[in-house]
């Protein structure tokens, strides 16, 4: 029972800590530091107003800089050191990476992932959203399609191991091949195509996400535009591609970029399915192969991942900035 008690205490202390911090800090600010009375009452109120937001922000900024800003700089610094971290070796780690065929393979595979998975997931999600829209049991169908999203990547990979198992009696793929009369094979060992088999798992998970967002967007399309198009004699395909898709383009782009960023970070699937063998290495799983062995090289890979993500990230911030004006 002790861990349970410990957990409850942690929660209570945490919540009361937050509330207490927040109450006390505001009280001190209002009563002690800048009290709104005396000769400088007006100035004090202004000062208190200027300081107050920072009171609310302080805990989060502190946490963010300890766990985010410091590590990013730390990683950059670390990637220019040797395995033990005691000798500065400049860009040697990066030199090693670009000379390593496995790294180049991982880079190439990663590019494939970033192209295929968001496209496939967005397309399937849009398809499902359109097909189940206005269907009496559409919501049940959506829930079921969405369910994989709640399962962890590891859990999903373990489930898909049963699909791809080499034993024809266990693996669904091989069971199907058996029915048609083909010999069993190991899908995750087929060169090149095994990448796509692994991508299927992530598409399976992410389609639900794309579907939910896009179906909300489809619902939001003004009914009049659809009606007008029908009266003008548009067929279902024209209606979909020329009327509906352009109107939800913004949402499609958001879904696409969100999944792209996710794809660049995901490593669980490759790590549990193949461990990066059989030519399925991607950058995050390649990095894991250096974990606990060579921090310099591991962080160098991390920096490369960061550089790859950077354009998408900047683009996203730009978008947010535009929306603000």
């Amino acid at each position, binding site marked *: 029972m002790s861990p349970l008690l410990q957990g409850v205490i942690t929660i209570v202390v945490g919540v009361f800590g937050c509330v207490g911090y927040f109450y006390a800090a505001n009280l001190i600010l209002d009563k002690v530091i800048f009290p709104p009375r005396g000769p400088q009452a007006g100035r004090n109120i202004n000062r208190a107003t200027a300081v107050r937001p920072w009171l*609310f922000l302080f805990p989060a900024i502190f946490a963010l800089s300890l*766990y985010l800003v410091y590590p990013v700089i730390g990683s950059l610094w670390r990637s220019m050191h040797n395995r033990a971290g005691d000798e500065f070796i400049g860009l040697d780690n990066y030199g090693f990476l670009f000379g390593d065929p496995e790294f180049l393979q991982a880079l190439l595979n990663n590019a494939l992932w970033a192209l295929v998975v968001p496209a496939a997931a967005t397309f399937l999600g849009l398809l499902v959203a359109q*097909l189940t829209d206005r269907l009496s049991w559409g919501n049940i169908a959506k*829930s079921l399609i969405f369910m994989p999203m709640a399962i962890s*990547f590891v859990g999903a990979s373990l489930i898909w191991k049963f699909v791809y198992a080499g034993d024809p009696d266990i693996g669904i793929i091989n069971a199907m091949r058996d029915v048609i009369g083909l010999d069993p094979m190991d899908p995750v060992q087929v060169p090149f195509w095994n990448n796509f088999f692994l991508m299927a798992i992530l598409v399976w998970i992410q389609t639900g996400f794309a579907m939910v967002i896009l179906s909300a967007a489809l619902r939001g399309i003004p009914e009049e535009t659809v009606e007008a198009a029908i009266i003008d004699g548009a067929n279902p395909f024209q209606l979909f591609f020329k009327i509906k898709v352009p109107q939800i383009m913004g949402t499609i782009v958001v879904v696409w970029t969100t999944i792209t960023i996710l794809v660049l970070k995901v490593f669980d699937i490759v790590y549990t399915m193949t461990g990066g063998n059989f030519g399925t290495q991607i950058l995050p799983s390649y990095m894991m192969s250096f974990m606990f062995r060579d921090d310099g090289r591991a962080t160098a890979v991390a920096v490369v991942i*960061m550089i790859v*993500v950077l354009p998408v990230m900047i683009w996203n911030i730009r978008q947010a900035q535009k929306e603000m004006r």
Partner: protein
Amino acid sequence: MFPTPIQKRSRATQVTYQTLLPLALILWLLPLLAVMLFSIRPLSDFTNGNYWGIPSSFDLFANYGRVFFESDMPRYLLNSVFITVPTVIGAVALSCMTGFALGIYRFRGNLLIFFMFIAGNFVPFQILMVPVRDLTVSTGLYDTKTGLVLFHIAFQTGFCTLFMRNFIRALPYELIEAARVEGVAEWRIFWYVVLPLMRPAIAALSVLIFTFIWNDYFWAIVLTQGPEAQPVTAGITSFNSQFVAQYHLMSAGSIVAAIPPVAMFFAMQRHFIAGLTLGAVK
């Protein structure tokens, strides 16, 4: 939203539509169904080669009983609870405050800090791995649940703040102004005016963060090792090496590991979807 509702289309289209859709659905869920079927089979079915037929006996309780009583599974599950629940509470509490500050107050640096949170949201976690691991080792938090919780809270704050700030921005600002005119102290405005209005956002965000944290695997294997502190995502892999080739137990274990977030999802579906929509569209 086809021009003609499917019910009014020709008979043939209707039939194709109504058979193809469930078929596609079953195909979609086939991996899950197969694992569920495997998890209630007795071991003898696998040795006899009866993989896909009707199970010779339904060993639901026997298989799941072994998962719960003969492995470290309950411990991993409990660890997951003790990691996930404090993280959800901490991250949501923090982000309510930061969201309030960024959404309500106009001050110099507001946008800058907001963009910092957005950027923090997109930073690949790989780049944090080595320094964060060193940090937890040097503070003695390595391989503890506390270390994992602290880190998760810090890392999730970016996304949560983004979420909360956008939600608070959409609230009617007049309410806050009215309260200010009445002379209500700022912390009271937060506590009695804004917080009650944020309930739907808090619910949605909690469900979302719950699944994020429950399903985390990367930090679980970077910051912890062994059944003392590891959550179920990491535990399931060691569980599988304990029961190699005992497919019925491996599947039962996978199901057990997946049930909490899936149950959470079905129970709180509305909030979950609201959360995803709110979090993505902005």
